[in-house]
């Protein structure tokens, strides 16, 4: 398909384990965002990649969270030493170059930390 894809769709892990969440943006999209959404609530911004610029990491809640984007395409969000409060749906979005362009969202990864 031509949309944003995320994997896995669901992830259940034990407290203290590390997890990796993957996002495949739409081909050619230069901007990529990660958000967190708890129980159908608002979107919490995590990190923003734009082309080759340094990412905006201002939304990462702690140093347990990190993200990278390889080759300007696929992105991985890593959460180390997961805590129960990390349980949420993690959403990825991408957009084409142009600050007025809308975002296309993936289906999300539902993370449950036991």
């Amino acid at each position, binding site marked *: 398909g031509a949309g944003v894809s995320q994997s896995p769709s669901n992830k259940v892990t034990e407290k203290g384990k590390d997890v990796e969440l993957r996002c495949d943006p739409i081909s050619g999209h230069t901007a990529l965002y990660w958000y967190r959404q708890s129980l159908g*609530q608002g*979107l919490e*911004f995590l990190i923003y990649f734009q082309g080759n610029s340094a990412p905006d990491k201002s939304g990462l809640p702690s140093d347990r969270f990190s993200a990278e984007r390889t080759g300007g395409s696929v992105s991985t969000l890593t959460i180390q030493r997961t805590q129960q409060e990390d349980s949420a749906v993690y959403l990825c979005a991408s957009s084409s170059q142009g*600050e007025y362009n*809308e975002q296309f969202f*993936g289906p999300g990864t539902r993370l449950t930390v036991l």
Partner: protein
Amino acid sequence: AQSVAQPEDQVNVAEGNPLTVKCTYSVSGNPYLFWYVQYPNRGLQFLLKYITGDNLVKGSYGFEAEFNKSQTSFHLKKPSALVSDSALYFCAVRVRSSASKIIFGSGTRLSIRP
């Protein structure tokens, strides 16, 4: 600093009646403004955006929004609500000519009763 406010957590409307979902913003420059919708158990979808020109913007599913610069608002409207419009709606803003991220409001849950 940029911010977006959606003052109503929930809006309840009878089917067939007009609906309004409110959004106000605060930015240091001129904004691009967006509305997104999240249907139950589905991903976020783009509805409409304001870039420039006509203050009344028309989007998907019969929705429209009016940009009001003096009131710094971008309220979402529909002349006649459908039960299928029931969803979570998000307003978002981005400052023009900046590399800044898009900022989302906290969301408004719209409930249309038959």
